């Protein structure tokens, strides 16, 4: 029982990452009808916003300490971050410690801008092109973006720890009447889950309760009619592209303490997020969320020893297996609309 609860928690956590990426992907697809293979790269860039902020905060004043030596036997250069010099050691360290949450503020404008620039500069010209062309051009863009990041940050993962207060784990088990240490879960992963729930409900309420959102939703259903009403739907869709990029970017920022970011993390998520979106049904936001959590949970359960001992290797293929079964039983995924991306 404790194992099941534990894997459920894991599943919710994994699922929230899948759901967030799939949400952004679906927003772009639903509004603009573009298959964006660069979405994983946006997630990666978000993560590197966090790395960048950390690097900026760590820009250091260099003093030479004659009493110590470096590996070559020269006098040691001691680095003190300017934030510590300016705000005092304690405050400075606290700011550096909180660099990941701070990176959210840092990432939002950057991601909105990148999304906007991508849409205006590139994607705009591909609305009426075949999906295969869209895939190729955004795939090319994804490679370019990740290579640029590699040029700056190298290929090695870069550690970006969560603030100290979120280190360690929380014991759910004792709350539910289990023994201590039976069901423990890291604080930051709980934060990640809560964060994604906030983002997801934020995007949904934005679409549901604001005029802007209602126009966008109407436009997703019937772009021409909304255009006839004299509303500049293109502009709104461009903004939605920025929002989608920001959602992906924030998912990336918050993910950095869970896994140290590296330049190809976007590609690692790309295939998976497409599977999630398609299983959810192309163009359906609730479908993407549902599929994200469902696949996350199933993947977690598949990695349980009890299941692996019966079906060796099941955790290697579970996502794809589930995708195949769902697509064969439900032709358009869980909640897909008819006629979308079927030709």
């Amino acid at each position: 029982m404790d194992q099941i609860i534990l894997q459920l928690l894991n599943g919710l956590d994994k699922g929230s990452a899948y759901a967030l990426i799939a949400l952004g992907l679906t927003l772009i697809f639903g509004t603009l009808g573009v298959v964006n293979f660069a979405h994983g790269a946006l997630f990666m860039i978000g993560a590197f916003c966090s790395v960048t902020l950390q690097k900026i905060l760590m820009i250091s004043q260099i003093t030479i300490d004659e009493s110590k030596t470096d590996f070559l036997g020269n006098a040691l250069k001691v680095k003190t971050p300017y934030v510590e010099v300016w705000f005092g050691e304690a405050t400075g360290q606290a700011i550096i410690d909180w660099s990941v949450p701070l990176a959210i503020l840092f990432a939002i404008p950057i991601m909105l801008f990148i999304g906007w620039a991508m849409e205006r500069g590139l994607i705009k010209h591909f609305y009426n092109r075949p999906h295969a062309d869209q895939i190729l051009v955004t795939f090319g863009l994804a490679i370019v973006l990740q290579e640029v990041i590699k040029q700056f940050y190298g290929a090695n993962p870069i550690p970006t720890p969560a603030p100290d207060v979120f280190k360690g784990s929380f014991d759910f088990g004792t709350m539910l009447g289990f023994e201590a240490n039976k069901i423990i879960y890291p604080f930051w992963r709980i934060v990640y889950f809560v964060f994604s729930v906030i983002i997801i409900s934020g995007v949904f309420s934005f679409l549901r309760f604001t005029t802007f959102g209602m126009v966008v939703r109407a436009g997703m259903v019937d772009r021409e009619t909304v255009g006839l009403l004299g509303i500049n739907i293109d502009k709104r869709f461009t903004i939605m592209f920025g929002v989608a990029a920001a959602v992906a970017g924030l998912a990336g920022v918050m993910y950095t303490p869970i896994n140290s970011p590296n330049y190809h993390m976007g590609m690692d998520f790309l295939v998976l997020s497409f599977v999630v979106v398609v299983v959810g049904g192309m163009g359906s936001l609730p479908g993407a969320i549902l599929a994200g959590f469902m696949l996350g949970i199933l993947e977690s359960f598949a990695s349980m020893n009890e299941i692996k001992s019966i079906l060796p290797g099941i955790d290697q293929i579970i996502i794809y297996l589930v995708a195949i079964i769902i697509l064969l039983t439900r032709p358009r995924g869980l909640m897909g609309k008819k006629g979308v991306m079927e030709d």
Partner: protein
Amino acid sequence: MLGLNNKDTKFLIIVILLTLSTPFVMQPFSESSAMAQFNGGYPDLMQRVAIFGIFAIGFNILFGLTGYLSFGHAAFLGVGSYSAVWMFKLLSMNIIPGIILAVIMSGLFALMIGYISLRRSGIYFSILTLAFAQMSYNLAYSVLTPITNGETGLQIRPNDLRILDGEGSSTYTNLFGLQMSSSAKWEVWGHLFTFNVGFYVCAFIAICSFYLSLRIFRSPFGLMLRAVKSNQNRMSYTGLNPRPYTLAAFVISGMYAGLAGGLLASMDPLAGAERMQWTVGGEVVVMTILGGAGTLLGPVLGAGAIKYLENIFSKINENVLHGWFDFLPDGLENLLVWVFARFTGDGWHLTLGLLFMMVVIFLPGGLMEGAERIRNRFGSKGDIDETGASTTKPAE
């Protein structure tokens, strides 16, 4: 000739000549010149271009004609390679049985995957094929290690069974004793040309594959496949069931992929699980679109371009660059080396990404459209019809 009309015969002859002269075409620079770095006329690359050309030609039969975008063709490439290597291990190092089994096994595999995946269309189909290929890859890498030798890949060992060859026989792939790896070299005016047995075997098979694909394009079956792409609804109401046509195309292209996989193993007897990964499946998609989907020659050009880039650009390191810009003043030299190094050596992926974007943005029809434009620019209307669309004119 050969059941082709005059135009297509001419086209085929040009393709044959081009293929046979690859050792010259890909080796344009003198060995001693700085440009020698760009020579690609060595056996491995020529073989690879021919083999991936076959892969792309086959993929184009599915994607170019029916419009079904499969991300899972890497699985057939892998199955072909594994089957071939197993034949080398068990039966004989002669490549014929290996290639035959590769084509059969991949055909069966394609039949199974195609039968299931073709129940859906559009992106749902793409994801189904992707899922199958990724499952194959993940399993081949881990659980199926007894069959696939996992991470390391399936290799030939001196003590393998090889029933037909007997004890202690050679471990080199051959065609009735003619080794794939043997080459003749010809040095002339500072140029070095390599004529490799393996390449000519690949080239011969590639020409046959191309010829077959030409026949399919011009056949009623090809017409039906284009009808599938154009309007499945109308097809259905015209009394034609699209499914067997697409399945046939899927299996044919799967067999092409298996053939390519078998040839890869014949040239270099190692079958790795990576061959089944989605990135390889994606690579053939990219090759086809880059060259021009639905055109006959485009996919081959795309395959050549990508393999060339991968093998040549990745080898240009800063040392080589310094050699190029040696004549410049130091500051300028370093600057240029730095700039170029972003795009070559470990930056070759960046060049690849930029190339994809440039081609898709500026040449929507792929490299073939570029060739077309150049031909139009110089006024001479070539008489080779590429799209196959208008060759069904009545025979005047």
